[in-house]
């Protein structure tokens, strides 16, 4: 079975001050099999978020290849790459990024809206996910009324709505206190396992990294894989 995500000699270089090249990732290679959870750790500026963006097809590598379900994202035109992300990737952000003009349930439904999915099944799925994260009673509430932990649970439901093969989470607990962070992370991994999604998440916390099946550590743009 092909890995969900494959990185082959991926480098990413940005233009620094005065146009000086600033390499962030240097020859990163790795594979993420289906159903597995991997934590990415590393210091600030080590390229963790960049790696996540490349995996999502939001950014393109300077060289090397990123394959999602065996398809090279770099070879796809923007529209195709966008569609691949829409259909196969779920994203969870540190700052939740919920839309304030939508209710809790409507926020969860945004990916279905983007994909143009039939509304009935999508709404049922959204309600089911909210039930599973304990927010069924808040479905019609405005998102501003939620606590930070609750907001991240809504973001998690949104990410899982379309049953992505790959769930990417950029410091999903970074904006939460320790207790809430632990709860959200447990929920994220449990739901991903139930849904069969592979998970790649960025964290600074050793404890949270220990919850993953494996750890990728970025150091000066190079990746070290751990068990």
């Amino acid at each position: 079975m092909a890995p969900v995500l494959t990185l082959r000699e991926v480098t990413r270089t940005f233009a620094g001050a005065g146009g000086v090249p600033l390499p962030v990732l240097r020859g990163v290679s790795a594979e993420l099999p289906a159903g597995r959870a991997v934590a990415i750790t590393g210091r600030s500026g080590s390229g963790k978020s960049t790696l996540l963006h490349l995996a999502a097809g939001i950014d393109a590598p300077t060289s090397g290849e990123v394959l999602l379900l065996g398809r090279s994202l770099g070879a796809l035109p923007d529209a195709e790459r966008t569609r691949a992300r829409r259909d196969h990737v779920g994203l969870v952000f540190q700052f939740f990024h919920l839309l304030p003009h939508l209710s809790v349930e409507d926020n969860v439904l945004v990916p279905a809206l983007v994909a143009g999915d039939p509304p009935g099944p999508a709404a049922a799925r959204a309600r089911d996910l909210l039930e599973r994260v304990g927010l069924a009673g808040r479905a019609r509430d405005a998102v501003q009324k939620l606590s930070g932990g609750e907001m991240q649970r809504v973001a998690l439901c949104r990410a899982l709505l379309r049953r992505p093969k790959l769930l990417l989470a950029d410091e999903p607990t970074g904006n939460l206190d320790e207790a809430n962070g632990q709860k959200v992370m447990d929920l994220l991994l449990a739901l991903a396992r139930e849904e069969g999604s592979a998970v790649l998440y960025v964290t600074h916390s050793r404890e949270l990294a220990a919850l993953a099946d494996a750890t990728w550590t970025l150091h000066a743009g190079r990746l070290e894989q751990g068990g």
Partner: protein
Amino acid sequence: MRAYLARAVGRELRAGKALFLLSVAGVALGVGAVLSIQILNGSALGAFAGTVRAVSGDADLSVLGWTGALDEALFPEVLAVRGVAAARPLWRADAVVEGRPGASLELVGADLLGAARGPSALPPAALEGALGTPGWVAVTPAWAEEMGWREGDRIDVSLGSRRARLVVGARVDFQAAAPLASRRLALMDIGQAQGLLGTRGRIHQIDVRAAPGVAPGALAERLSAALGERARVATPEQRTVEAGGLLSAFRLNLTALSLVSVLVGGFLVYASVRASLARRREELGMLRAVGATRAQVLGLVLGEAALLGILGTAAGVPLGWLAAQANVGAVSGTVRNLYLLEGIDRVALTPALVALGAATGLAGALAGALWPALDAARADPRALLASIAVEEGAGARAGRLLAAGLAALAAGLAVYALAGERLAAAGFAPAVGILVAVPLATPALLRGMGRAGLPHRLGIAYGLRSLGGRLSASAPAAGALAVAVAMLAGVTVMVGSFRDTVERWLDATLRADVYVTTPSWRRARSEATLAPEVLATLRAYPGARSVDVLRQHTGYTADGRRVQVSGVDAAVPGADGRVALVAGDAGEAMRALRERGAVLVSEPLARKAGLAPGGALALRGREGPVRFPVAGVYRDYGAEGGAVLMDLEAYARAFGPGAPSNAALTLAPGDDPERAVAALRAALPGAALQIRSNRTLRGEVLAIFEQTFAVTRLLEAMGLVIAAAGVTLSLLVLARDRRAELALYRALGASRGQLFRVFLGRGLAVGGAGLVLGLAGGGALAVVLVRAVNPAFFGWTLGISVPLRALALEALAILAAAAAASLYPALAASRTPAQELSRDAL
């Protein structure tokens, strides 16, 4: 803080050139609209005053007729009055230049020998020709150049049905002393003018210079006493004030309409400043935290707005000048044809008008920025730094704003209910209430739209719905558009109602088949008469069942009101069909005209002078005031100042004998009017005549009607352009300030096309909200304009008729404009990359 202001402005400019330029454009269009109208208003009065000055020079007083012309015998009487240093009789009439449509000469016949100095003074070499050459006339260099005339050229002119050949004898710059004076002025010998085109013994004006040490006011009293009721005496200033009074309603309405553009432009500034402040809350919070006072923050924001106002003014002044230039023809036509005043040849941009434009631009920009500036200045540093969601505040305010709008509407209605009967301007109060209520209702409507169910796709419908959560950027734009649409729809319904009313009035009163008048009649009125042989030919026309004739002059009521006085043959068969009475039986009224010497008064006159059937009207006659019983009030849409209709016999008794200026033939049933027109033209080859069928005349009347509203349409268009700029501005604000949201959609897999459609939907939502509220407000505004403003200012009653086709086309155009205005922001939004997803909260 001044140095900081300069840097802040520079940074804002770099960050959002398009936003800044759109705001400047909004101010510029507002300034342009106001300035163009003020230039035209000023030039209309300037043309009249300039022509008075060019003709009368340094005369202190003018003796004028109450009924159009004066008996020449008055001249020696004027000269004999103590304190008169010099007097100069003038013969004046507008003659039409044959073969040149629309061209005329404003002929001044003067005693050229007696004019050693002053405006009629000619170079000695020219004087000889002026007296020795038949038809010698001096014209202005400007008019000669435009008409392609050189000295010695022959010009055929007509006055009434008479034709005469004039010779261009000299080119004299009558405009030298008064640049705004009419370039159509032409000077000839008074004796020649009377002989060729007028009547011996009839003059129109005697200019008087007071002897040294004699006050003009005292001399005017002496002259009035000496001449009694036979003439009136006025200073040049009084004549200009009178002309200003005639034009006041026309000018006021155009000014009011142009101010709407400033209001719409102010909304743009508001939206732009609000967006800028929302983005810079933290910056302001930091400034306050390090010790900047509230006043300094207020000054910073208002300083930026002032710069916007200055730049908008710099662009708006030339724009206003160009708009005025483009509309000179239409306004001049209205002033000449409807108010019988001097046309506008040249528009003047005076320093005072530039100052007015600058004040408008600055005031509009500062007023637009004031609220958000006060908001920012009032907030404490903690609140500013906390980045409190601006949208939450905007959402909560929507209900309060709606309530405030309804209160403004109620207040406008209350003012009208209390003062509408006594004060004409009170008619504007409900209009102002509507124009205030419409934008204030916009946030509530957008919020309501945001509560609609979630659509099934990320696209146009989602854009429509999501605008409810973006009130701070979208509501001002939709509000501005709603105001512009309300004005457009209101005026469209008003003009449509007016046109429909006029058409029905024409149907009811234009009953004859063929109408005969002269090309010069529109301006020269009582001087443009039909020669007896013309009338004889008309009466002898074999197909004519009856021939109706009309005499008309611009006269005065005893209390000094200027009115059109007409005499018709009340005994002619079908005379009762000539007028449409507001109430009562037309046959009965015509009998009263014939048998009792009564008059009918037009609706505007009845309203303004408080006249009603059974009352009496005193008019200035040849020998003094004459009282007429009022037999009825008739509908008339031709003379805003008022009109009086009487039987020809009563007319002759009061104003003296004279020839008619118009005739109307009713043909035998089955006769073809167009054939009759052709036959009459063939039978009267030597006379200067306009012979038109009923259908042609109707068309011409409606064309003049349309011309009257040409400027109105320009102002509406300017308002809409500003509003469309507002749509672009609001969407650019959204595209710029909501980049994180757009990036989120992209991260979640939204295509560029989807983001494009979302923004198109937002543009359509702004357009739709503006349209819905604008149409509702416009409907209400139309009722106010038709039922309150028109009767109060112009005096006529209009029926309301809704021009559905025109409104539907306008609605489509507005939605198309909103969609077009959203294309650029939509394109910009669609290019947002997913990696723009910032670490800030959405």
